[in-house]
């Protein structure tokens, strides 16, 4: 319980450094607001992409809407996701204990799981659905790892259905189970009949629920639905995995110890490690095939690695006991554990502060968007780069041209290319042609865009573009 509160308070400390949310957080905010206001999910979004159909499972948003009735929306969007993800420490503790049956080590790993940089910083202020998905997925692994009682089966069924109904990431869990089965078969390792049955149940139920929810997407995109209609320009950069960045974000020692634990588990034919290995292999496979957003894949991977690293730490402790340096045992343990902790906590705090300073809209930005909200017609369209789409719709309350909710959005690749062209071109006529194509009334130029493309030249024509704000960001009204 202490570990849970430590992790929760650390998260809340960073989350409350700013009153605002990250871009993605504003999409969640709008979905939740709509449920609170109308009782219904927002399946047709009039503001996103100038009006488009939205296809998603609203369960998570209903949960947040329920809490927002008690706590208020702004508190809910920061507190509830933080509580959800902090619950992961209990799950990791349970999993670790099942693997090595060592209370102290399990507690240590549970504490560390709360400070994995990629999860700590990545789910801090965006009310991400993954704050619910990640603990749920690992809870299912925890239930599955040595399932034998009716009560556990009932829980597995309920949470398996819940996970499938909340998010398509549930397919990752099913894929992990299939890989676990294949790994076991290939290593001539007998898994229990009950586990086989649960795998079959999970695969079919998840598959069915996903098809029911995303029927329209499957019909429209076919198998390409797995790429989520992400613009090709973004997909091509999906696996530009920078190794140093990976080590920082997952934690150097957890990566090393985790992989060592997996290899050890497979060599020693430990069933529990086979399961986690199956999960890791399926994530790596999806990452390699560019079928999953690297941020999401690495988040799941990091938890799986930190859980398997418990075996390495346990083996290390037993080994030291057998060596001739038992007098230095304590010093060695303290050193290892401190290094392990530092490799996670320091990058976590560093990335969290960096994340807040870089990804959160500034006070001035919010002021401008608030001004646009109050001083322009309700149906105007604001051109903004991809990373600002949800802020435009939620704070300014106006239509955007693009945002990162790609599934079922129209011509995502074309729009991505056109927006890139608008900001980078020196030709006013080319920019105007595209501005008219998307019925743009206001052009929003944040500092990130200016740093990427340089000064937007065509805004110099004051007869066509009336400057409203000239700081960072700049806003122009289109008069042509």
């Amino acid at each position: 319980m202490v570990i849970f509160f430590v992790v929760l308070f650390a998260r809340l400390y960073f989350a409350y450094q700013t009153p605002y949310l990250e871009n993605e957080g504003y999409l969640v905010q709008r979905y939740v607001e709509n449920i609170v206001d109308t009782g219904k999910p927002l399946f047709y979004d009039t503001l996103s992409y100038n009006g488009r159909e939205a296809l998603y499972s609203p369960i998570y948003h209903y949960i947040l809407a329920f809490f927002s009735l008690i706590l208020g929306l702004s508190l809910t969007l920061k507190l509830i996701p933080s509580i959800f993800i902090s619950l992961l420490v209990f799950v990791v503790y349970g999993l670790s204990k099942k693997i090595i049956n060592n209370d102290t080590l399990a507690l240590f790993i549970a504490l560390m799981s709360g400070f994995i940089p990629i999860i700590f910083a990545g789910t801090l202020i965006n009310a991400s659905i993954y704050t619910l998905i990640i603990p749920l997925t690992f809870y299912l692994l925890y239930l599955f790892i040595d399932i034998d009682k009716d009560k556990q089966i009932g829980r597995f069924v309920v949470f398996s259905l819940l996970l499938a109904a909340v998010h398509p990431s549930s397919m990752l869990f099913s894929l992990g189970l299939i890989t676990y089965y294949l790994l076991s078969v290939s290593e001539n390792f007998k898994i229990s009949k009950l586990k086989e049955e649960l795998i079959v149940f999970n695969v079919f139920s998840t598959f069915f629920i996903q098809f029911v929810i995303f029927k329209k997407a499957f019909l429209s995109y076919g198998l390409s639905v797995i790429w989520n209609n992400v613009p090709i320009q973004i997909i091509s950069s999906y696996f530009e995995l920078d190794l140093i960045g990976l080590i920082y974000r997952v934690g150097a020692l957890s990566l090393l110890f985790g992989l060592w634990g997996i290899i050890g588990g497979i060599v020693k034919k430990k069933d529990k490690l086979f399961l986690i290995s199956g999960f890791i292999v399926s994530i790596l496979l999806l990452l390699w095939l560019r079928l999953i957003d690297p941020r999401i894949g690495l988040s799941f991977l990091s938890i799986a690695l930190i859980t398997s690293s418990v075996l390495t730490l346990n083996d290390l402790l037993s080994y030291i006991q057998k060596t001739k340096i038992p007098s230095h045992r304590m010093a060695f343990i303290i050193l290892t554990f401190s290094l392990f902790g530092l490799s996670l906590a320091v990058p976590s705090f560093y990335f969290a502060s960096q994340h807040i300073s870089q990804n959160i809209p500034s006070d001035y930005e919010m002021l401008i968007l608030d001004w646009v909200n109050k001083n322009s017609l309700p149906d105007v369209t604001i051109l903004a780069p991809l990373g600002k789409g949800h802020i435009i719709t939620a704070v300014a309350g106006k239509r955007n041209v693009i945002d990162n909710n790609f599934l079922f959005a129209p011509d995502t690749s074309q729009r991505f290319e056109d927006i890139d062209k608008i900001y980078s071109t020196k030709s006013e006529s080319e920019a105007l042609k595209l501005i008219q194509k998307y019925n743009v009334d206001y052009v929003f130029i944040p500092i990130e865009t200016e740093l990427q493309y340089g000064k937007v030249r065509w805004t110099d024509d004051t007869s066509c573009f009336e400057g409203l704000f000239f700081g960072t960001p700049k806003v122009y009204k289109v008069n042509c």
Partner: protein
Amino acid sequence: MEHQKYIKLIAKIAILLLAASFLLLPGIIREENTLIGDKPYHHLSLADKELNFSSIKNELSFGWSFILRYISVKTALFVLGLASALLLFLNLEMMKLNQRLLAAGLFVLSPAFIYMFNVGDKVGIAFAVSLIISYLIIKERYKTSIPLFILLPFLDVLISIFVLIAAGLYFIYLKTSKSLFYYVLLLFILGISLFGEWNFEFISDLGAFIGISVFALVFALFCFILLWREFLPLYGILLIMILLSLKFEFGIFYLSAFISILLSLCISKVYDRKWESELIRNLTILFIFCGLLFSGISYANRLSQEMPNESLFKALEILPEGSVVFSDIGYGNWIKYSGKESVWDTSGFLDKAKERELNSIIDSKDAFITRQILSKYKVDYVLIDSNLMEKWNERGIFYLLDYDYKGFRQIYDQDGVIIWRHFK
């Protein structure tokens, strides 16, 4: 004995009721009072004409059009649908009653069945006749089956070739050596691979207009892992059927029927296996059924929203008989059915050069070239509806229709359908 007879009768009635409900479902939920798709209109416009053997195009497989002279499409499809479900049930005499019932039920739920007997395509009747042939062969009433073998090419040439080959293979398997059977089978597989074009869109849940259920396929694959030793020959046939479906559209209908049989065997095996948890067994079977049912219902819903709509025929009614209308290639059969001439050849034999030329009009903003092509094909009218507005969004033809006052004049604009008069 008496008791068993009653059970069989109830089983047959159950199949007929299930089939009837899925035959009526798309019609009930369809808002338009028109037939689904363009195929039935092709056959109906042929049914109105006198038979003429001067050209090979229209007379190939004229049997269905001939029948439609005397029976309405909807009645014919309903009767054929019921008959096919029952015939499949009767064909499976070697299986247990519950497996036969399940197989026929699963077939009725399949998107292929819903397509065959809700869209007035010729394939429905050809499929039903092929089931009668197979029933007669199983019952060893070979002579009775001969007239049907002769009739089949008039309904669908490709299906008749397939049935002939399948019957041949059956006889070779029964009467001669096994090695000859495998040689002929290999030859058949080679033949499939060589002819026709590959089409990998054969799963209806993933967007194919005619396809099989994704749940059926996934469950069949799952059963392969579980029961491959027992059902290896059946999976061999499944593979050949999939290959056939990737090459020929009609293969999908036979694949669906075969998968239904395979699934019925698998489900009964899976259900009868000893499970550690009964809860898991029941839930898994429930999800499989829900998946198969979902595929069928969602396909019926999709089919019910298919073109054409009444407003299209209402618009075509105002045009003089025999006038030539230019529209999308998919609209040819509807234009012909309403007594006008379409620039597109709707018999399925496409003239690639003509197609290229006519398609170039859609993109062109050059009034001279567009008018020249339209005049070449004696086009009197251009028809565009809301679907085409979306499909041809912002393409050249709209520019000309709006601004070339000398070449075009709008004469009709109602319920989303617009017609322009073309001045030659």
